[in-house]
């Protein structure tokens, strides 16, 4: 990646002290770690069936999976924003009994294996789930094995990333701005909407990107809760996994597409990121 012209002067260049090299005990493992991260990506690029690639990528199956992935990840991110930002505010700005427990529960899906999340979603929102049976009975809504199910599975996994990120930004933001707004006659909601939200916008954007990336790559919860139906619930990661069984070349091609999307997102938001942190 080339660095853009305007961000170079911002970086303070510290002159290195003479004769103070990097100790080998740190350098060797550091380089090993770097290689470990880069070599697989390199392998993906080296072994890609470049000659077949145009043909592979123009197949409607690939486009279906990619479109479904983008639509579901974006919807899941939007859903996460709608419920996640208020949840983060509640955790950061109010004091209620059991707040630390709630906070721990919110972060649980971060460490929970996604497959377990998928099973849990089935038990909650499945046709016989504790909530799902009523949805089915009263509204005729069935969520498992539908595109909506994909969105829910991705939201379940992505939401904690957003909440944690936004809560951190809120805690760092000066709460006295909300007090100043209150002395000017703003209710707490008005203060949040007109003062706090604009102030934490960079943090919200960073959280949304994290959540979106997590949703885009979601596999375990999706395949468990929504299944693997091409065009309906088969997102890119699912398509990659399936293709690897019988058409490795297609799997590599699909992986390359996901890699390209990831790099594009990272490049597009790099400036925004660095400003947000």
């Amino acid at each position, binding site marked *: 990646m080339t660095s853009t012209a305007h961000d170079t002067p911002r970086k303070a260049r510290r002159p290195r002290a003479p004769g103070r090299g990097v100790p080998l005990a740190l350098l060797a493992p550091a380089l090993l770690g770097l290689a470990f991260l880069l070599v697989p990506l390199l392998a993906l690029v080296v072994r890609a069936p470049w000659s077949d690639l145009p043909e592979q990528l123009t197949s409607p199956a690939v486009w279906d999976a990619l479109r479904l992935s983008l639509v579901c990840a974006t919807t899941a991110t939007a859903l996460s924003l709608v419920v996640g930002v208020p949840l983060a505010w509640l955790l950061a700005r109010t004091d209620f009994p059991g707040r630390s427990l709630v906070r721990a529960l919110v972060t649980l899906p971060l460490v929970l294996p996604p497959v377990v999340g998928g099973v849990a979603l089935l038990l909650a929102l499945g046709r016989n789930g504790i909530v799902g049976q009523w949805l089915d009975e009263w509204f005729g809504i069935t969520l498992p094995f539908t595109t909506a199910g994909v969105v829910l599975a991705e939201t379940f996994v992505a939401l904690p990333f957003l909440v944690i990120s936004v809560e951190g930004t809120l805690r760092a933001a000066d709460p*006295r701005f909300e007090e100043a707004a209150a*002395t000017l006659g*703003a209710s707490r909601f008005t203060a949040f909407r*007109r003062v706090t939200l604009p*102030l934490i916008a960079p943090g919200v954007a960073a959280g949304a990107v994290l959540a979106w990336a997590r949703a885009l790559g979601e596999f375990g919860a999706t395949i468990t809760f929504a299944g693997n139906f091409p065009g309906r619930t088969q997102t890119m990661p699912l398509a990659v996994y399936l293709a690897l069984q019988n058409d490795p070349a297609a799997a590599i091609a699909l992986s390359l597409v996901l890699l390209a999307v990831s790099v594009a997102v990272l490049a597009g938001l790099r400036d925004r990121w660095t400003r947000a942190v």
Partner: protein
Amino acid sequence: MTAHPAPQGLDAHLVVERGSFRLDVELTAAPGDVVALLGPNGAGKTTALRALAGLSPLTGGHLRLDGTDLARTPPESRPVGVVFQDYLLFPHLTALDNVAFGPHCQGAGRSEARRQAAVWLERMGLAEHLGAKPKRLSGGQAQRVALARALATDPRLLLLDEPLAALDARTRLEVRAQLRRHLADFEAVAVLVTHDPLDAMVLADRLVVVEHGRVVQEGAPADIARHPRTEYIAQLVGLNLYRGRADGHTVRLDAGPEVSTTEDLSGPAFVAFPPGAVTLYRDRPTGSSARNLWRCEVAGLESHGDQIRVELTGELPLAADLTAVAVAELGLHPGAPVWAAVKATQTHAYPA
């Protein structure tokens, strides 16, 4: 207290208990009054201000403004405007929208709120900076935007928390004069919090000195400057202050020695004299007319404006202001023994 609460203006008894700290301050003011809460850091001034604004709950006492009980009213419903110490201008809004925020919250339409805000900013001499974001404003400009923002809600009580503390010395002089003018124009009650005696004396009609959460002295600035009643106030106004018992023209100090004064008093009394009234000698003066003469030792020297302040210990701990030349001629250094003299006409005694 037998005084009846004024129907107009501020009538407050602020009690806030937090851990081991207890604030217990009575505060009354008529419309048009500017009251300064003066006190050292940690005295509870800011706590009192937050209680008035509704940002910290009262644990006792009462709070009435123009006869209305506000003790349980949330901050957004109080007719109170606040200028915060570091202004807290909303960084994402222009000066105009910062000032329009209040009127808009109070129900004015967006364009009406902006029109009112523009009028306020023009009154503050900021007509050219309506579209500027706070970070593009100088300290003095930001202070005026903060004042305009607080006044734009048409408050019945204006609170200013260390309004000049964030400014450098030069800007401060200028802004202090402007602020004085705006406060004089303000027809409701203004309460300002400061630890700077000069700000307090220039801006306020009345000082309320708070120490350890309690009012220790209250009155007109000139009166407090002349008759300090605590060590803290004496230091603020630059006086040596002692407590003792007067008998005629002599006050026997609790610290030991006697001081001759021109006033004729009896009973508990304070004696005060400025550090500039102290004369120092290396040897016991013989021809001096000063009746007040004490044997002291130099504890420390520091520059104080164009003078040097000499801290003395010994028979009577005191501060003396000398010129640099005098310090050099006397060869003063920490530990040097000196005689300190003060003329009776330079001292001031008043009942404690």
